[in-house]
């Protein structure tokens, strides 16, 4: 057993941390969000070309650094520490994850472009009726000659306004919730017939409602086998879920740190409020939640390559715990700050907003407790 990071991993973390400290202070982030596109494309370019960061989790044959889940986790944690709004989760973890899993010509063509920063991928999977069930899909991909025709509505697609490609789940067969008949496609985000309604999200990203209206897509857009895509989708979503948990570790660590700093300098009743025992115990509880989030994220990251049932149980255990921690740490940070925590002017409130969105991303705590129980607790 060994929980230490390699030299390369330490270097990735240090390089990224230094870069983000220089470029992603709270004011810069606020300016990016307020700008026309809601982001600063130069950051993404620098992550790709100056830092080589987007290649950290890809193989050397594809031009990457030869890493994997651990690299994704530590990059997501660093991004979480500045509540970055970069599409790393969507492009590298989800898009890259799917491409690595299927391999072949499409992977050889697209992965180098991800690493270069030329490709941004958004993951169009959620549907209004579907909640967190990945098989609950009404979007259809009907065979049409050599290719397919897409119809349907995907909701809350993070990063879609920035995307060059969409990773889409659709039905090539079966009824709405059938396990069989689900397929995964990687398509051009600007294909004819795609209608987008863009909007900001409460946590600072941009997202879209996407309507596919008879969108013709080529046969080679299909990733994996037609109608048998669900296991692949479940796998990449599990990888993304753990990546979000890693992000949460960064977000909650900062919430805790910011709270400690504030409590030390805020005076009431003639002393720093950090001297009050009721607040000390709350800050200790926050600390313990952050530490346990890190532990669970490490555990789940190391189990991502286990057989599906074990992997899912580990990921659900991790997300259930991290969701609860994100809520507790976020709420406690705001309460300890008092009124100032509820204003837009301070960074702490924005960390709280992201922590809140993480709670339900890829499934609420309840959803994951339920999946964990289904997998581990026989009647």
């Amino acid at each position, binding site marked *: 057993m060994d929980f230490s990071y390699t030299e390369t991993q330490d270097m990735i973390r240090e390089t990224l941390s230094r870069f983000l400290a220089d470029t992603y202070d709270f004011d810069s982030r606020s300016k990016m969000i307020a700008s026309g596109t809601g982001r600063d494309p130069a950051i993404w370019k620098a992550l790709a070309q100056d830092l080589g960061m987007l290649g950290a989790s890809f193989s050397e044959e594809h031009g990457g650094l030869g890493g994997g889940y651990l690299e994704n986790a530590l990059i997501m944690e660093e991004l979480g520490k500045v509540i970055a709004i970069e599409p790393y989760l969507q492009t590298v973890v989800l898009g890259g994850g799917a491409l690595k899993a299927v391999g072949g010509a499409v992977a050889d063509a697209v992965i180098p472009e991800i690493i270069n920063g030329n490709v941004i991928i958004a993951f169009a999977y*959620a549907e*209004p*009726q*579907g*909640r*967190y*069930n990945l098989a*609950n899909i009404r979007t259809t991909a009907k065979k049409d000659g050599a290719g397919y025709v897409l119809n349907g509505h995907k*909701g*809350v697609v*993070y990063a879609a306004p920035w995307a060059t490609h969409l990773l889409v789940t659709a039905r090539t067969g079966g009824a709405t*919730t059938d396990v069989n008949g689900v397929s995964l496609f990687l398509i051009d985000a600007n294909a004819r017939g795609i*209608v987008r*309604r863009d*909007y*900001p*999200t*409460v*946590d600072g990203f941009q*997202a879209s*409602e996407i*309507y596919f209206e008879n969108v013709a897509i080529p046969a080679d857009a299909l990733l994996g086998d037609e109608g048998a895509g669900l296991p692949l989708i479940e796998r990449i979503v599990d990888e993304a879920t753990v990546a979000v948990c890693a992000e949460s570790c960064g977000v909650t660590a900062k919430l805790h740190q910011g709270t400690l700093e504030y409590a030390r300098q805020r*005076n*009431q*009743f003639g002393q720093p*409020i950090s001297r*009050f025992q*009721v*607040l000390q115990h709350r800050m200790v509880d926050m600390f313990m939640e952050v530490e346990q989030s890190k532990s669970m994220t490490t555990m789940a990251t190391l189990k991502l390559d286990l057989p599906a049932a074990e992997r899912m149980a580990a990921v659900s255990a991790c997300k259930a715990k991290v969701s609860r921690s994100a*809520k507790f740490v976020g*709420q406690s940070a*705001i*309460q300890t700050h*008092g*009124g100032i*925590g*509820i*204003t*837009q*002017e301070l960074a702490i*409130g924005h960390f*709280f*907003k992201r922590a*809140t*969105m993480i709670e*339900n991303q890829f499934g*609420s705590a*309840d959803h994951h*407790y*339920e999946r964990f129980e289904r997998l581990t607790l026989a009647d």
Partner: protein
Amino acid sequence: MQLEFSPAEIAFQKEVRTFIAENYPQNLRSVQDEGHDLSKEDFLSWHRILAKKGWIAPAWPVEYGGIGWTATERFIWSEELAAADCVGTMPFGLSMVGPVIYTFGTPEQKAKFLPGILSGDDWWCQGYSEPGAGSDLASLRTKAVRDGDHYVVNGQKTWTTMAQHADWGFFLVRTDPDAKAQEGISFLLINMKSPGVTVRPIITLGGEHEVNEVWLEDVRVPVENRVYEENKGWTCAKFLLAHERTGIAAVARSKRGVEKIKAIARTEQDGDRPLIANPFFKRKISELEIDLTALEFTELRSLAGEAAGKGPGPESSLLKIKGSEIQQRITELALEAVGHYGAPYFRGFGEGDNEHPIGPDYAHRAAPTYFNTRKTTIYGGSNEIQRNIIAKLVLGI
């Protein structure tokens, strides 16, 4: 003791219910249903209707414009208002400074200020908190120096709710810099249009403009606008805080909130069943509802005590703590219920596109409301302070 309403109370309930149904402004209803922010006029439109009817200040003594309703009738009234989802009347005049003025004010002050509070012609705000004086309110530093028959006021207040609309504010100011914290504070009524008053917005996490900073620079305030004795303003402040805490339980409004969650959970799908059939979610609703019942009957017992002549005492802190926690849990559950559609930020939706809506209407404000409602355990004396009050004044430890 008895639980059932008497025939007279049932008749009263019918009367007020009919009045609300027939008089609540339709345009205000649509503003609420469509999830828009409420303007000053929106708030005042309902206020004026109630004022005209004479039902604007049920809790006030009859001689000052109250109605003489019993505690039970007032309870029925607030239940009916919440059940019909009426906007609340602003508390700063009616529940806060009004009772201070009729309790501590001079006959001239009563004559000058109470009519404007009742009619809605004067919009009030509360100048209590300062950047350095939050939970430790008595450490406030805004000072008022006597200059002939005026005070000259200098300082900064914060978290001043709806001050952007205010005609008048009631302020705690330090009139004796040498006295111990609570002594040396006076209670001043300040015209917000006075030279030297500057109101700056504070935007909160849901993107709303509810609270403000208020800067006071050499503001001249006539001495006749001081309520009660000089340096005895803390007496008014304590009286007012106790009043603020009773309303803060918000039982009727929370009941309405629980009903809204049930409606969302009946609509939202969770696999092949509605969300309300999810045993985990159902349990959270029932926990909430049961805790709300405990709060409701705690408040009713407290009201009965008041009716028997015991003023609202330190046990009202219990109502504040439990009431605010329940309000927060309601917003937590609402956000959980809407799933993915908690993420879109409605203030950035841009022009309407009815063909391609962004999630269900009930989801639009779920996250901003959740963020904003974190304030309830902070304002009006944080819940930590309320627990200190109970420990000290109720438990005697």
